[in-house]
């Protein structure tokens, strides 16, 4: 959405001898006239990035910067307090533990994009895990069938909330608050007298968080694939843009981004291989993040969600079925709550009465917001859930290493959340004055 993407490739096509030949001179000529002299164009080269960066900071386009800085600060502080914090094992534990909350948070991002809230996700995740455990353990269903039914139930529950909100017009806040209570009761009822159902330690659900691809090649292979796919899609996309005569990113830009991704991916792969290998949970989480990001930013359905977050009236007039999109988004949220619930149950190898309660709901919402998803709708990405949940779980693990008690943990997480919400609000104000709300 930022201006740098449309930077002056127009003159680049003319003075760069290696640039793609101008296929359609008329289109290129039109492009020249279309560039407004008042438009800020990023200068080429590293200096260009720096001045662009300064301008964005002034305009309040912080993006994910606060959370990345925050993550770095957290790492430095806890590493100084305890040298085990950045050990391969600890990081590995963090990235596996965060998946349950992270999945729920992905669903929350969808709802927040509409400018709404879903308070029921904690209870729905607990209800889904209880349902799965009862079916798989007590009723003797095959685990895959129990998993499918639990996720399906999550989707149906979410759709039901969506129905009350979208069709009957009840505030989403109130509907999902009712859902929070109802599905908590439902879970306790399903679990029955015992209250705890232990899962098969070698079963499919348990494997979700205990299985590791111990072969060194797995982690590195995934890193190679990720970097290659990223580079190829960016590169081919840019070629297509050039061919169509619309502004494209310079090659140096693509290369820089690819290198950055490569450094992060290979560092992560190296770290995983220091311990047990690549965790299955992380792979599944990444797959869902890539998938949902694609849906949100590259499909008409995702565009509709953003449109609803921008202006409901405009969306309605554009012929978007507002009711259907709203119901579907709550269904997505319910589905991800169920998936998250399965990962959380897998981590403790049981479904029990405390599942989905406590600070889970707050952490899932906080993760989405901390990651940079706006509470006001229309701005955010599912990758925000990853960054946010990393921050929250890192704090939890760091405090645990220091043996700091639960009360302090709550207060610190609350302070982080409040800070982020304040940043979000201030950002929005600054962006309004800079015309980029």
């Amino acid at each position, binding site marked *: 959405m930022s201006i740098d993407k449309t930077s002056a490739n127009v003159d680049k096509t003319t003075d760069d001898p290696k640039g793609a030949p101008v296929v359609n001179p008329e289109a290129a000529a039109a492009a020249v006239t*279309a560039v407004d002299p008042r438009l800020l164009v990023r200068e080429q080269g590293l200096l260009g990035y720096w001045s662009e960066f300064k301008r964005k900071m002034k305009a309040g386009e912080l993006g994910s910067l606060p959370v990345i800085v925050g993550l770095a600060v957290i790492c430095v502080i806890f590493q100084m307090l305890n040298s085990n914090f950045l050990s391969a094992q600890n990081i590995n534990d963090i990235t596996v533990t965060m998946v349950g909350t992270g999945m729920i948070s992905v669903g929350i991002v969808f709802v927040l994009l509409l400018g709404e809230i879903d308070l029921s996700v904690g209870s729905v995740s607990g209800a889904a895990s209880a349902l799965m455990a009862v079916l798989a353990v007590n009723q003797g269903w095959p685990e895959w069938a129990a998993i499918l039914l639990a996720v399906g139930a999550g989707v149906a529950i979410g759709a039901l909330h969506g129905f009350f909100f979208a069709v009957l017009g009840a505030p989403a806040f109130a509907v999902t608050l009712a859902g929070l209570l109802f599905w908590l009761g439902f879970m306790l009822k399903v679990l029955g007298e015992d209250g705890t159902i232990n899962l098969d330690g070698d079963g499919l659900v348990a494997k979700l968080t205990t299985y590791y691809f111990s072969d060194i090649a797995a982690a590195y292979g995934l890193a190679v694939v990720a970097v290659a796919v990223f580079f190829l899609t960016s590169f081919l996309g840019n070629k297509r*843009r050039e061919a*169509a005569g619309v502004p494209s990113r310079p090659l140096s830009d693509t290369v820089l981004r690819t290198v950055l991704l490569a450094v992060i991916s290979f560092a992560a792969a190296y770290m995983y291989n220091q311990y047990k290998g690549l965790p299955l949970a992380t792979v599944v989480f990444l797959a869902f993040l890539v998938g949902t990001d694609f849906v949100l930013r590259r499909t008409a359905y995702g565009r509709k969600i953003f449109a609803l977050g921008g202006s409901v009236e405009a969306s309605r*007039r554009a*012929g978007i079925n507002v009711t259907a999109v709203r119901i579907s988004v709550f269904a997505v949220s319910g589905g991800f709550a169920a998936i998250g619930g399965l990962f959380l149950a897998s981590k403790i190898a049981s479904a029990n009465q405390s599942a989905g309660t406590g600070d889970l709901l707050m952490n899932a919402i906080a993760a989405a917001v901390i990651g940079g998803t706006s509470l006001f709708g229309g701005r955010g990405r599912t990758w925000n859930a990853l960054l946010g949940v990393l921050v929250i779980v890192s704090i939890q693990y760091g405090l645990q290493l220091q043996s700091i008690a639960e009360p302090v943990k709550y207060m610190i997480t609350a302070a982080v959340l409040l800070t982020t919400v304040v940043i979000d609000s201030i950002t929005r104000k600054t962006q309004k004055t800079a015309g980029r709300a």
Partner: protein
Amino acid sequence: MVHVSATPVLALRGVSKRFGAVQALTDVELEVHAGEVVALVGDNGAGKSTLVKTIAGVHPIDEGVIEWDGKPVSISRPHDAQALGIATVYQDLALCDNIDVVGNLFLGRELKKWGVLDEVEMERRSRELLTTLSIRIPSVRIPIASLSGGQRQTVAIARSMLGDPKLVILDEPTAALGVEQTAQVLDLVERLRERGHAVILISHNMADVKAVADKVAVLRLGRNNGVFEVKTTSQEEIISAITGATDNAVTRRAARTNGEVSQ
């Protein structure tokens, strides 16, 4: 004079619309032919915007018939109107601030390739469209929130042209525009007429109406108050129809208003 077909593209017969205790429209008649610009005028609250919204499917009508190419049709959703070939540019623009110009132009009718948004083609067509309409926008990839009011108006009008509609409804298109942009919009309206589109133009600005409209339909308190040929009607006659000079209760007030206007 542009040739006008015999069957109107759009005809309203006895259309009524209520909102709770308010009778917003009563027995309204309106005809628009291909290649014709009909100006819809009336005071604030006369029912212009409501009428437009019934045609666009935002508020379905309570009574009466809407005819499209001579055949009665039912328009109960915005989608129905779009499918018929009615494009509407609202007074309050109806753009999404958080989405870029390309996204807004194609909102609700995105171009897809294997189910995936074809951003390149959409951007190329957006630039082409904006160029042919001589619309100047800093970049098609910045969010609408960064554009000025006039630029937003031009984007909204450009958006209505994308589907090659038969009927274009412009609700106060020049209200927020500067001198040059107003002229450009009026040029645009004339270009639409030349290409055989039917246009309904809502405006408070009599100069605009006289400049581009073929016919003027006057609404007053939700009812028809005359349809005039622009060529043969004076500005004063139109204004007295708008302000209700024919209505005895307000004659004196209307006369005074006329006096002020003609000074």
